[in-house]
């Protein structure tokens, strides 16, 4: 009888451990270790748009290699934005907050390409810029 009781407590402890420790750890490991590793191999870069007053594009500088396919996963964290990369003929439609858009392209010529927001998003919207650096 004491045995079943002890067993009950151990099962309870295990379940709590699973719920409060294991599952969260798994989530964090997936998102911050596994997923970035996979994304790096496929050349996927997540770009988060925020109004300039809240930080602007993150990352603001994107470094890629000539001839290699680039996959940009763009999302917004506050209001509707848009992305255009000048010189690379890459443009998204309006990016509504929380939605993800995929932009794929293969840069042919090395250089620096300006990208900027195409939807009025804040008073400092014209300053919302970043740079794509294509290395040889």
């Amino acid at each position, binding site marked *: 009888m004491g045995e079943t009781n002890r067993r*009950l*407590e151990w099962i309870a*402890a295990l379940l*709590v451990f699973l*719920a409060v420790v294991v*599952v*969260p750890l798994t989530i964090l490991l997936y998102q911050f270790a596994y997923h970035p590793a996979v994304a790096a191999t496929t050349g996927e870069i997540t770009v988060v748009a925020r109004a300039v007053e809240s930080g602007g594009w993150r990352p603001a500088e994107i470094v890629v290699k000539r001839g290699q396919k680039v996959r940009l996963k763009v999302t917004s*964290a506050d209001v509707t934005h848009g992305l255009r990369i000048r010189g690379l003929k890459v443009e998204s439609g309006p990016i509504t*907050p*929380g939605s993800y858009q995929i932009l794929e392209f293969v840069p042919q010529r090395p250089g620096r390409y300006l990208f900027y927001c195409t939807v009025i998003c804040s008073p400092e919207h014209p300053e919302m810029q970043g740079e794509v650096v294509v290395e040889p």
Partner: protein
Amino acid sequence: MAQRSTVLERPVPRPALEAPWRLDLLRFRPLRWLVRQRWLQFALILPNLFIFTVVILTGFLGTPIGAKNFAIIFVWIVWWALLILVLVPFGARSWCTMCPIPAVGEWLQRRAFILWRPRTFGLNRKWPKGLRNLWVANFGFASIALTSAVLTTRPIVTGTVLLGLVLIAVATHLVFERRTFCRYLCPVGGFLGLYSMAAPVEVRRVDAEVCRRCQFKACFRGSSEASLQVGGVGGYGCPNFEFPGAPMERNTYCLLCTECIKACPYENITIRTRPFFQDLLVEKGRKLDEAYKSFIMLGAAVMYSIVMLGPWGRIKDWANFSSPTGTLLYALIFLGSILLAAPAIHLAFTWLSRLLAGAQGLSVKKLFVDYAYALVPLGLAGWIAFSFSFVLPNISYAVSVLSDPFGWGWDLFGTKGYPWTPYAPHLLPYIQVPVLLLGLTLSIRIGYGLARQNFPALQQARRALVPLSAYLAGVTALFLVLYLG
């Protein structure tokens, strides 16, 4: 009185059905078996603990966009809707049974997840006598309610507040005895207690004579070696400082944790159904702190209907804490309304009611406190009506958020693309009007019962009812103007 044997019978023979609405639920063998299982409460808490962990994680690490964050949608829309539309009106403090916030602290305090142990650990200090009331919880709730525009729309604020509550609960459990947090500190508990008086279920003793002769009082003290020899399955004394055998006559502080049912050696405590709103007419236990809770809740429902549901941008900016002056103004308006204006209006009508009744000798304070309980049906109706107004348009977010709780671009169940779909928002008046009218009728009915309890003559109570009804009708009209006009 018939002579009884010296040895009390166990289990107590249950009386036959008293009335159609009153049913002893533990007459059903499966239910009686279930409530005697020590793992019952743990099994109810565990899923909520998991969900709560996800809420904290998404609150801190997930997208700052409220509508795409699990913390915001599943706390302020899904959980809130469940609470105010189902759990409270039908299950009393049934949320408290499965609440994860005190759980960790309680497990540490008991050094057990499930089992009953004769001792609890921790410092077991007594909560200071002057604070053994709802005032801390009232001000806690008012402060949190003040921040609701920011709290319910910014995930990190939700995460911080909920984590803060857990940490306070853990600390309280380690320092003080039993569930001091739940009784005296929890901001949610204050209003859950008040509105749970409306529910059609109750935990009560069965046979008064058995309690009178009982030497153990295990329902309050907890089981002991001696009590276990007679019966019971081992239970802690009521964690919320109630004494079911005394008797406990109201739902206000009962967490439905079933410890008393487990502890009682005579199986003399049961769960019963009953008509709605019964506890509002119980005279024992009425106090000013509970009355104040009533004003705070009703006032908050009105304020939210103006600020959140209304079209006026300026006050929304203030509520959003976008500027220091706006914040200060909003704090004054909000807190002033619920802590000063609402009670003042209530006082005015209480005084008028007494005047019309011609009972100048009666204590205004007692009438003031008693009449506050008449606000409960209308307050609950107001909250239900208000809740529908933001739940119906926005609960569809839950479908997409389930697949992408953090807003990181996941799609766990394939529903991430489910679009925002307001569910029949134009039908809102058809829900709000009947609910408010029902609340009004019941409030007047309770008000009359309260008047009869206070005024010695029938004629006085009749006259007293007139200003009270006008007041209640006025509040209803205010809601209707806000919703329909």
